[in-house]
């Protein structure tokens, strides 16, 4: 199918389920057959897309789960949350088996991510990043960020390095030499969100001093984007596309989504387009895989799809107190979103591509 028609494909509501509280995270398996959902009441469930079956991995228990991640091979699911909770399940057997359960601390775990190519889980633990190996069933690195708590972390798409962000800096460690001092990128404020572009060429940081910074591989001097009305809370990169010189970078700040396009002329830098439809804080953004379509979800109860990250093509409701998170299936056919009262909604691409011209 030509990419033009593919862009026009519309999503249609497919199914709904609910947990007991605010949905904090959704994570898809790499093969796109299932996704996991967590809630502020501490629930963790696995939902199989085709059969719509929901398996409870952890029931509601008072303390929240705030982050979820599925390993690159789809075998392990990790969850982190309040009271120092780090949980890992093995999901390749007949039934899910829990292989790690830490909860001995007052430190809130809200950032965790698997290395894309190895079953190694990195999670922010106060001022440290811990790396835990599912193969060895033990911690393999303890990285001291020092300057503050770790606010975000991101593995490079190649899996060879890990970046962590916080107050005044971003620090990047090489996987083959954890013990060596990290590479440091200085900031004027605190970095709340970092993201590598899928091609690995760019690292972006969303900061509390109302700026976004972007570093290109091998260039120590970043681009600085300013003029945001508040702190920049989340970032999303598109995949590379033949129509653009660099991947698109979407950022959220307050009720706005700002999409940055790198100009073909290097002296111009990045051009901004503001998508200002939302009337409540934007909670999540994500590009559809293999496409430039952007999804945004907000406190106003709207989930919007923006064709080429610029023109509104579809708008969904279904979470009256607001959407809290969203995640595209890696194949890009299905979109799952969570709501403030435990709503979990799933939309799937229709094959007829008619409708909005």
């Amino acid at each position, binding site marked *: 199918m030509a990419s033009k028609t593919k862009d026009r494909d519309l999503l249609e509501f497919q199914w709904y389920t609910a947990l007991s509280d605010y949905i904090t995270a959704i994570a898809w398996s790499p093969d796109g057959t299932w996704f996991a959902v967590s809630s502020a009441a501490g629930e963790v469930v696995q939902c199989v897309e085709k059969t719509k079956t929901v398996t409870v991995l952890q029931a509601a228990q008072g303390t929240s789960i705030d982050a979820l991640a599925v390993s690159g091979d789809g075998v392990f699911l990790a969850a982190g949350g309040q009271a120092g909770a780090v949980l890992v399940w093995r999901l390749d057997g007949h039934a899910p088996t829990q292989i790690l359960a830490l909860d001995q601390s007052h430190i809130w775990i809200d950032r965790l991510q698997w290395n894309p190519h190895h079953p190694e889980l990195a999670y922010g633990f106060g001022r440290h990043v811990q790396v835990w190996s599912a193969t060895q069933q033990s911690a393999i690195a303890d990285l001291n960020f020092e300057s503050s*708590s770790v*606010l975000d972390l991101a593995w490079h798409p190649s899996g060879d390095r890990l970046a962590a962000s916080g107050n005044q800096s971003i620090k990047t460690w090489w996987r083959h030499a954890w013990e060596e001092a990290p590479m440091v990128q200085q900031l004027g404020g605190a970095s709340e969100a970092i993201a590598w572009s899928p091609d690995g060429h760019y690292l972006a940081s969303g900061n509390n001093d109302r700026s976004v910074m972007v570093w290109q591989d091998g260039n120590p001097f970043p681009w600085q984007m300013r003029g945001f009305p508040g702190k920049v809370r989340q970032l999303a990169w598109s995949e590379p596309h033949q129509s653009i010189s660099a991947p698109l970078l979407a950022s959220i700040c307050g009720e706005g989504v700002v999409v940055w396009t790198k100009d073909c002329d290097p002296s111009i830098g990045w051009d901004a387009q503001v998508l200002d439809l939302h009337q409540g804080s934007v909670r999540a953004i994500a590009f559809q895989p293999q496409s430039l379509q952007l999804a945004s979800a907000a406190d106003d109860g709207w989930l919007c799809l923006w064709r080429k990250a610029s023109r509104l093509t579809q708008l969904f409701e279904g979470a009256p107190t607001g959407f809290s998170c969203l995640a595209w299936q890696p194949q890009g056919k299905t979109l799952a979103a969570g709501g403030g009262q435990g709503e979990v909604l799933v939309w799937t691409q229709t094959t007829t591509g008619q409708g909005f011209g």
Partner: protein
Amino acid sequence: MAVTERKTVPVTVLTGYLGSGKTTLLNRILTDEHGQKIAVIMNEFGAVGIDNQLVIDVDEEIFEMNNGCICCTVRGDLIRIINHLMKRRDKFDRLIIETTGLADPAPVIQTFFVDDEVRNQVRLDAVITVVDARHIWQHWEAEEAIEQIAFADVILLNKIDLVTEVELEALERRIRGMNAIAKIFRTRDAQIETATILGVNAFDLNHALQIDPDFLNETAHEHDETVGSLALVEAGELDGDKLNAWLGELLRDRGPDIFRMKGILNLAGEDCRFVFQGVHMLFDGCQDRPWKPDESRTNELVFIGRNLEQMNLADSLRACLVEQNI
């Protein structure tokens, strides 16, 4: 339209030295039959463990937003935890933040004005400082002790049973000299009606300025401290442009030394009162209700800060008055 107006949750900040009675007060608030569900954020492990009340402890973290400018520092730990807690906003009606005796109150307060995400969800109700009437004299040298008093909206002079009336009066005078806007209560075992310290709305601009009349009447303040209060009362109309220029320059040059300020102003050509408040360089002002016909239109301003007498505040304010044709 899918938009629903969400109400913000009030936040009470509780400061004071270890041993001042801060934890006793917190326990009293938590066990009192006020019908409110309260979530507590603490910076020190305390002896608080009340059933059905959510208590979270975090380590204090100061974030700079502008390369170290003290007016742009916020508390990163509070921002993170408040954003987590607010996901379950239906689970509690009020937040109490208990800081350590060594905490600088400014970044705590600034967090509620500078961070847009926090500001959308919660509002600062008041800063309550508990002072150990018996032992405070040991701490006058400590900047934190002074600043906790200077930034407070409510001050509990606690352990009054351990000092004489004369000592207490001297202490109260000294504290009033430092902070002319706080409500001062004398307590034993931090015994106080919870309702009088929760729901103070001290940062609500529409709450009229309250200066202790005794403070205004006193002609000579004790100026042995570098930290003090200054109240200005001036009749006449102010020139908005001149006032803007003066306050802008003052905050730019002396912002770090001005802890808090509040005021009600009579601007030339306006039928409504103009009210404002500030914390260091952060300034917030708006038009208030119309002046009443029988009300005397005076400008009232209070500054709390360090070395205020060097700032020519009274003369500068007078220079902003519109010249009257006599």
